[in-house]
């Protein structure tokens, strides 16, 4: 189902009708030529591929985006307060707002970090918040918070430049918010928490799925792109190894690898992509890590349920943006509801990400439903259930035809001195009609997002 077109959409289509559609192929040529890639491992093989891109942008009216912005600032502020509280006083647990059991069983919760406060007490610096627009009430709904290593911002950034070259008419005739300041927002956030030294982007390396993005953001933000062995920790300080043997003090690390791999001395000893001793330096307050270690607890699918409560608890405000209606089988009342309504619910395995472990009741057989019920009963904390949100489709120009595809929207919220919401984002659309999974790892594509006003 498509959203009712606004005057902004009409203006877009007016200009689109006058454009040379043969030029659409130039986007793919550009992405191939400049290796705007999303890498995958398939059947043990490394595949470099450009992400599917659709030329029809998602259009969000400025005043609508302003509301999203307010809601996201509120949410990310509360999530940061939650993380800082949880790892220090844990008042929210003591006050019974979030059950201890949920904290203990969240895989991203790291007890070893209790008592530690990172630089400027900022923990969730760069956040990707996934939203959809519910067709039932025209409201934006939060589906997921990504507070660890959210990726994707580089794709709309890269494509916008190309868009302006291929189809300048849109930008000359419409009031589309410019988006080029994202790297500066990142730089400001890095500088804000920097403990003294240079900024670096730590990548797992050339064969990571998002290597293009690591390289792009390093270049645009002026940080140095490094792999683990190009950093060294001496006396609890992190140094960048210059080619001539000089060691340059590092003050802030925008790390693009998960907690488990970041320091083989502290976490997974098998990790070849981590920096030995990094956590010691971090705990000594000698370097800032963006995002902080241990954030996984806050974007755990089970903890998601409690975010509206966090907003009330920390900010004494009503949430501006709502969660999708969510049930925790852990609670008896919710378990009953889930058992009686599984056919219409979406069941998510809290340990999975990237669109994996998401089961749609309406597309399962009776036998599958029964199996799933048994699994949920056996391990209620492992699952959450959500009402299926009939979110809007977006018009996509696929193979020369206009087709409707489900699309979500990842907004980027960056916390530095202030909390900033980038006035763009990653709109991801599903590969097939009717499919609700839009993740890149599920074959989904992306489109630009234009925040516009008349």
């Amino acid at each position, binding site marked *: 189902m498509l959203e009712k077109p606004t005057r902004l959409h009409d203006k877009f289509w007016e200009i689109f009708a006058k454009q040379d559609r043969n030029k659409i192929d130039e986007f793919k040529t550009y992405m*191939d*030529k*400049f*290796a705007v890639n999303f890498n995958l491992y398939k059947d043990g093989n490394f595949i470099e591929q450009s992400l599917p891109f659709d030329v029809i942008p998602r259009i969000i009216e400025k005043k609508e985006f302003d509301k999203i912005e307010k809601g996201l600032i509120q949410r990310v502020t509360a999530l940061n307060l939650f993380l800082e509280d949880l790892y220090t006083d844990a008042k929210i647990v003591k006050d019974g707002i979030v059950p201890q059991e949920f904290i203990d069983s969240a895989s991203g919760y790291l007890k070893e970090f209790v008592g530690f406060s990172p630089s400027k007490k900022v923990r969730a610096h760069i956040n990707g918040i996934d939203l959809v627009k519910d067709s039932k009430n025209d409201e934006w709904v939060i589906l997921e918070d990504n507070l660890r290593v959210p990726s994707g911002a580089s794709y709309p950034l890269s494509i916008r430049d190309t868009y302006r070259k291929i189809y300048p008419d849109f930008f000359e005739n419409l009031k589309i918010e410019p988006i080029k300041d994202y790297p500066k927002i990142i730089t400001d956030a890095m500088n804000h928490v920097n403990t003294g030294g*240079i900024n670096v982007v730590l990548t797992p390396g*050339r064969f990571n799925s998002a*290597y293009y993005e690591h*390289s*792009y953001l*390093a*270049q645009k933000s002026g940080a*140095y*792109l*490094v*792999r683990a062995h*190009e950093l060294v920790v001496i006396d609890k300080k992190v140094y*960048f*190894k*210059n*080619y*001539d*043997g*000089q060691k*340059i003090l590092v003050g802030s690390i925008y790390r693009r690898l998960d907690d488990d791999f970041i320091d083989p001395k502290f976490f997974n000893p098998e990790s070849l992509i981590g920096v030995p001793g990094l956590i010691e330096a971090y705990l000594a307050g000698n370097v800032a890590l963006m995002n902080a270690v241990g954030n996984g607890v806050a974007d755990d699918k089970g903890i998601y349920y409690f975010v509206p409560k966090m907003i009330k608890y920390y900010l004494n405000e009503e949430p501006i943006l709502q969660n999708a209606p969510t049930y925790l089988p852990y609670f008896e009342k919710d378990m009953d509801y889930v058992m009686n309504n599984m056919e219409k619910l979406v069941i998510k395995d809290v340990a999975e990400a990237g669109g994996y472990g998401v089961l749609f009741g309406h597309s399962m057989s009776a036998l599958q439903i029964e199996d799933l019920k048994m699994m949920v009963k056996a391990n209620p904390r492992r699952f959450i259930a959500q009402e299926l949100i009939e979110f809007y489709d977006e018009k996509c120009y696929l193979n020369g035809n206009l087709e409707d595809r489900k699309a979500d929207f990842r907004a980027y919220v960056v916390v530095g001195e202030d909390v900033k919401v980038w006035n763009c984002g990653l709109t991801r659309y599903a590969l097939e009609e009717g499919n609700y999974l839009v993740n890149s790892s599920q074959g989904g594509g992306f489109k630009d997002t234009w925040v516009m006003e008349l």
Partner: protein
Amino acid sequence: MEYLTANVATSMYWLGRYLERIEATLYEINKAYDKIIDVDKNAGVKLYKKFEIDLKYTNASDFLDVAIRGDHSANLINLLKNARENAIISREYIDELAFGEIIELNEIAQRIAKSAEPIDYKDIDYALSLISEIWGAQTKRGHRKEVDYFLKLGKLVEEVDFRLRFDRKQKMTEFILEEINAIFKLLNPKIEINISQSEDIMGDLYKEMDKLIIN
């Protein structure tokens, strides 16, 4: 102040070497191909002896085929793949247009590698023009940075290697070596360096490279 990891410095250096090697080899292939047609059937054999490769072919077209995609260490398809890898590792330091040309160059190479058709001469001409554009795009940068000198160093070292293999005029080689010495000093003023004509110029250069880029 600009910092560089050894990885980027090395990648830029090798990118310069590979691009220069590909360009110089293509020019030599060009000349040999022309001779094989009606002047000297062995021109290709003689050329590849300089690379210590025993090349076998039946005619000019076959020479092109085995020279470019044959199973040997100077296979241009592999050289282009290596150039692309080095470009990807150091992409944030490379001019955007130059980077795009390198990717395109590799696309041509991959197409040639997969094709069963004889090699089209137009592809070679186009590849050469792309390489010229890469050098042009990279050198037009108004504000030259340290990292650019690693690319240039790679190019010059490869030029010396070619000159030695092809017994070209010593005077010009001396001139290039002077330029190399100057770049070494610029990149690390602490290095005492004065590479000149010797028994083993390439060996001397490699030793200095090991001092310049500390892994």
